[in-house]
């Protein structure tokens, strides 16, 4: 039986696992953006926060993913459902690229532009929303893109704790020593990662300030 055959025959399940996968990646990315962008702004504007924020995000990044799932398992509310746990872990991993690129993007805004804006009487909020964030947007988006691509890969491991997603095929294939099954999980995951990379890359280019 060829791989294509398998995918077609089990298209219901492939679709279901793909949607689960997208759910894990989508929710965790959204959370990472909601938390990471404000943290990036904080560390760009107040250098005191720079080291603790980026340092913590860096340390989280070094924890092996399986170990992180394991650490989180006994946490009361989280451990109840595997997808909550997986989403939290994925969010934590996605934070670093989002925070770092928000920081870099805002610090990279031409100082003359910021000074002119301040001198004209823009408030800090106006400066942030009308000048700094729009000009940093493409850099921030490239951080989000990295986060999404990494998350798509990492989310396959979430199947190890029963959170679903395309990792299900991979782990089942590993258990049954069935390469076909492994590929049935790995290839759609790779396609997801590539399309996210391409789509967000396109958006990033469009948003590049001239």
């Amino acid at each position: 039986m060829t791989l294509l055959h398998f995918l077609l025959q089990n298209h219901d399940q492939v679709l279901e696992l793909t949607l689960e996968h997208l759910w894990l990646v989508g929710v965790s990315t959204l959370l990472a953006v909601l938390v990471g962008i404000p943290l990036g702004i904080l560390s760009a504007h107040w250098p005191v926060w720079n080291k603790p924020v980026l340092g913590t995000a860096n340390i989280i990044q070094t924890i092996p993913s399986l170990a992180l799932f394991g650490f989180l398992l006994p946490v009361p509310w989280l451990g109840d459902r595997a997808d909550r746990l997986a989403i939290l872990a994925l969010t934590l991993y996605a934070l670093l690229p989002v925070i770092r690129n928000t920081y870099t993007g805002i610090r990279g805004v031409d100082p003359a532009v910021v000074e002119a804006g301040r001198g004209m009487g823009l408030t800090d909020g106006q400066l942030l929303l009308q000048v700094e964030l729009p000009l940093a947007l493409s850099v921030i988006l490239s951080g989000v893109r990295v986060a999404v691509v990494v998350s798509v890969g990492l989310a396959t491991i979430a199947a190890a704790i029963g959170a679903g997603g395309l990792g299900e095929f991979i782990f089942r294939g590993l258990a049954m020593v069935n390469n076909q099954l492994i590929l049935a999980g790995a290839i759609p995951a790779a396609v997801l990662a590539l399309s996210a990379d391409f789509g967000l890359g396109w958006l990033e280019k469009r948003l590049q300030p001239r």
Partner: protein
Amino acid sequence: MQANTVDGPVIEFCDVAYALPNGQPLLSRLNLQVHRGETLVLLGRSGSGKTTTLKLINRLLNPSAGEVRVNGAPTAVSDVIRLRRSIGYVIQDVGLFPHFTVEKNIGLVPRIEGWTAERIHRRVEELLQLVGLEVQMASRYPHQLSGGQRQRVGVARALAADPAILLMDEPFGALDALTRDQLQREFSSLQRRLNKTVVFVTHDLREALRLGSRIALMESGRLVTVLSPEDFLRSNDPLAAAYVRAFGNGLDSVANRGEP
């Protein structure tokens, strides 16, 4: 002290000092008055404190000692956002917002001040003509403009909300000689029409003589002397004399100052 006296100085420095957070002094015991409608040029080399002086006026910097007053009111107690919106600010690097069109750049302060779209549009057209740009430029982005055009937009943007005071930090410093010459002429005639109170920073004596009603010479964070352009050329002050020597015979043009 009475605020907003009509005849008093528009900008006043009273024993002002400024030091960096690490304690290094950049400006000490500055006493200086700027009068309504004049163009006061702060002349000095880099590190002399002229830009620091300028930034103390719109509170991009706050004095570590002494008091700066604008229209009689100490800036330390005034609303900093209102203060800055009442003062036009032009810098050498222009600092146009690269993601805004020329029209949006010029109209930003009016827009956040709540002007109607139609009034902003009319104001932008008026200002473009004032600074010698065609009205079609309004839809361009800064990267589509030449250096001289960008600085014209920078001046238009500073004038947008019709401030009575204009601060200019080497606005023509980064331009080629011909464009600079042209913009200086135009600015000089513009200033005669608009009658703003201008504080102008430069290290170029020629520019100072050409544009200034008075020249404040600065060195190492101190105000050395304040002189009219005519007196500057005849001054016995060693630093002023050194400037005149350094610029040498390039100063002939000063003889016909004001007549382009």
